[in-house]
């Protein structure tokens, strides 16, 4: 690995790259270019501070292929625009706007046009530079000493040393014979044409440093964290607003949640149908008073009412209210099915699928024998069967004993549907063939009961 230091290897020598000749006017340049071409040179070029018209003929420059690239790019851009708009707006994400057609060529035209132009222009410029061999770090021509004025007010012809006709003396003589003011042989050091290493290194270093922030962000986003992540763009994630249980200094009672203003009813809370909402034929406020009455002093501990021996000592004041006897919503098969579905979701876990008070929760609670569970009453007891349906609705709504109030959980329509199903369940134990329409009766003969 020490051959770098071997003294006998020669350093790279500058090599002859081109011969450049200076002319003073555009006309001299055109004449010179024509003569160089006539002398049989092929690898040669003319250099001028502005496009000299007429030199294309003299040098034999053929029409550029550039327009074909432009045309292809413009067509490609237009087709892309059609495809993009068609796929995005008719296939992948159609927008309904006033019944207008999804595929609308007139409405797509502006973007088709713009993409034609965009791709056409960029392709034209980029391909033009590439065909010209640009960008280029250094060329033999630009390394010559005398060519600096080629970008200001002088005109040059350059002969490439790779041309078969090229020779140091012959080419110089040719250029001098066609009126060049100054001829210079131009050498290029192969090492000189390379991009400086320090710059390459600097660019790599800068690029590496620039990669760090996005990588750090990606890592931060990807990782799971115990603490909240940095939230740069808050949007509406954190709002200055009062949340339900937050303390609030603004109000005297220190609470964010507000009571209804006295004498007002919140939207949707106007329950003005006694039959539907309370299960009463008419209500004079007695029900509310009874429900809001402070609970009586706990009675002496008594055995759990097993198997329906209701304490007959005190009459329940609720018994005296005018409960409705029929369901105040339309009775249809759909309502009944809805009631079945809701019953099985909300009620059967305690009351059992058939309403015997043997749901899974009840069975488990009795098994635990904690003494705090009160077994639900079976629907098939005399007491429950005889209760007006309005009274049962009240029980479902407000709860009773250990049963919690379901009024906030099940909508009023669904509560009535559930009660309709409850009546159907009761009928399964007390039903009589005479209750069944004669044409349905034969079907029931095949039903097997367990």
């Amino acid at each position, binding site marked *: 690995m020490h051959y770098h230091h071997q003294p006998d290897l020669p350093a790279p020598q500058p090599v002859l790259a081109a011969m450049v000749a200076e002319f003073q006017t555009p*006309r001299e340049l055109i004449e010179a270019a024509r003569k160089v071409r006539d002398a049989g040179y092929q690898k040669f070029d003319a250099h001028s*501070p502005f*496009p000299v018209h007429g030199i294309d003929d003299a040098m034999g420059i053929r029409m550029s292929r*550039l*327009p074909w690239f432009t045309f292809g790019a*413009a067509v490609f851009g237009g087709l892309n625009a059609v495809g993009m708009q068609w796929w995005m707006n008719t296939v992948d994400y159609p927008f309904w*706007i006033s019944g207008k057609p999804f595929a609308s060529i007139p409405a797509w035209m502006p973007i088709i046009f713009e993409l034609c132009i965009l791709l056409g222009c960029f392709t034209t410029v980029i391909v033009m530079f590439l065909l*010209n061999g640009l960008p280029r770090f250094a060329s033999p021509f630009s390394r010559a000493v005398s060519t*600096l004025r080629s970008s*200001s007010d002088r005109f040059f012809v350059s002969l490439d040393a790779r041309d078969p006709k090229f020779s140091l003396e012959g080419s110089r003589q040719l250029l001098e014979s066609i009126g060049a003011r100054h001829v210079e042989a131009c050498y290029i050091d192969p090492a000189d044409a390379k991009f400086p290493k320090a710059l390459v290194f600097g660019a790599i270093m800068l690029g590496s440093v620039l990669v760090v922030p996005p990588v750090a962000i990606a890592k931060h986003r990807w990782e799971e964290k115990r603490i909240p992540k940095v939230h740069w763009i808050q949007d509406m994630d954190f709002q200055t607003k009062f949340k339900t249980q937050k303390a609030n200094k603004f109000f005297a009672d220190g609470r964010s949640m507000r009571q209804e203003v006295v004498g007002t009813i919140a939207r949707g809370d106007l329950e003005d149908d006694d039959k539907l909402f309370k299960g009463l034929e008419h209500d004079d406020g007695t029900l509310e008073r009874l429900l809001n009455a402070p609970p009586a002093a706990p009675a002496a501990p008594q055995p759990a009412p097993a198997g329906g021996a209701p304490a007959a000592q005190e009459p329940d004041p609720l018994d005296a209210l005018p409960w409705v006897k029929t369901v105040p919503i339309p009775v249809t098969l759909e309502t009944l099915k809805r009631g079945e579905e809701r019953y099985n979701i909300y009620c059967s876990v305690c009351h059992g699928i058939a309403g015997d008070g043997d749901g899974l929760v009840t069975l488990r609670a009795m098994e635990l024998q904690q003494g705090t569970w009160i077994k639900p009453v079976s629907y098939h007891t005399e007491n429950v069967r005889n209760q007006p349906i309005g009274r049962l609705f009240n029980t479902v709504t407000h709860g009773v004993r250990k049963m919690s109030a379901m009024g906030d959980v099940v909508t009023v329509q669904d509560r009535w549907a559930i009660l309709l199903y409850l009546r159907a369940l009761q009928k399964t134990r007390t039903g009589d063939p005479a209750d069944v329409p004669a044409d349905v009766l034969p079907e029931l003969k095949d039903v097997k009961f367990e």
Partner: protein
Amino acid sequence: MATVTASLVDNSIETPGQRAPLVLGGQDYASVTDTVCRIAEAPRMPLAWYVALAISSSLTAMLGVVVAYLLATGIGVWGNMNPVFWAFDIVNFVFWVGIAHAGTLISAVLFLFRQNWRTSINRASEAMTIFAVICAGMFPAIHVGRIWVIWYTAPLPTQNWVWQNFRSPLMWDVFAISTYASVSAIFWYMGMVPDFATFRDRATNKWKYFAYGILSLGWNGSARAWHRYERAYLLLAAMSTPLVLSVHTIVSFDFATSQLPGWHTTIFPPYFVAGAIFSGFGMVLTLMVPSRELFGLKDLITPRHLENMCKIILATGTIVGYSYAMEFFIAWYSGSRYEQFAFINRAFGPYWWAYWTMVSCNVLSPQLFWFKKFRTTPWLMFIVSIFVNIGMWFERFVIVVTSLHRDFLPSSWAYYMPTTIDICTLIGSFGLFFTLFLLFLRFLPVVAMAEIRGVMPHPQGEGEQH
């Protein structure tokens, strides 16, 4: 050497049978190079440049502050309010986009029409175009309030999996403005490459050599390269010409495709394009008249150039005046009460002052250019160009605000007034524009040297006519 009769100083006089020279003062190739390069090579700029930069960069800093305040606080810092939901943001956007039209018009349309006088002013106008587009593009970007989601306007595949509605003129706007900005930029850059090569070849220190060397891409004026370069220039001009006309057409669709009286009109596309050219040339004059004085460019940007621009301003200003009249005629002719109300209200309603400012600046002031004295006296045309700028800003204000402030529902009628932040943003955008332009004057080739050399009379009476 290429010389012009030195005694000829006024090239705005038509001499039958002879083309008026476009370069004065006995200039030749070398002196053109010197004249232009001197600006970027001078160790110090004129005092006026430093004063101007100090003012404009302070205004740019103010723009940064108000935009940061806007983004941190929300759109409520502006005066936009029901029913004027579009206000200064869109007014300024349309104003700056309009200004941006002159550059590409000069580079492309005048090129196709073989108007050689364009060569002295095209570079600076293109620069002006780019900077005006930057100012214009800023407004839609910040008016969404949450600028960090501005990428929603680009059809990128994201987890949202929602695509843009391509039938919306606002989407067309996104494509038109971004295409216009990028095509203008690449056109501008391509035009500068040969001049960067001149800068590189004259560089006096390593850094300049390196910077201009990179920018010039190794251009060495090869005839084969020039051949493709000219072809590319022609193709770009051919494509930019419809582009420049399409951009303000599409901007006008933002209004014209709505159903609001005062906006819903088919005259908008041509009327907007004429107004854009009008305002663009107004701004070119505003910039060029002081620049040629300050930087000794009087031989390159001659009275003839200025006069030609004045004539274009006169022509387009008259088209704009015709459009104003035609809007009233159509409102009457349509028989629509709402349309009629919108225009009567525009001229005699609460915003009468804006309307008549617009009419006096845009229709009356350019009529002064019928007089040769105004077309050939720089300070007079400078004053008129300022009026044109003011008038064109008010035109957009009138279109946007007067149409919105009294819409179909009289209960929501209101009087829009901008807030201080609105006004600071507008002023700040001028700061940004002039800062960029002043930096351009300092560091880049302000006149297209290669193109000027091409249209000069060639030495020894030879050379072909273009």
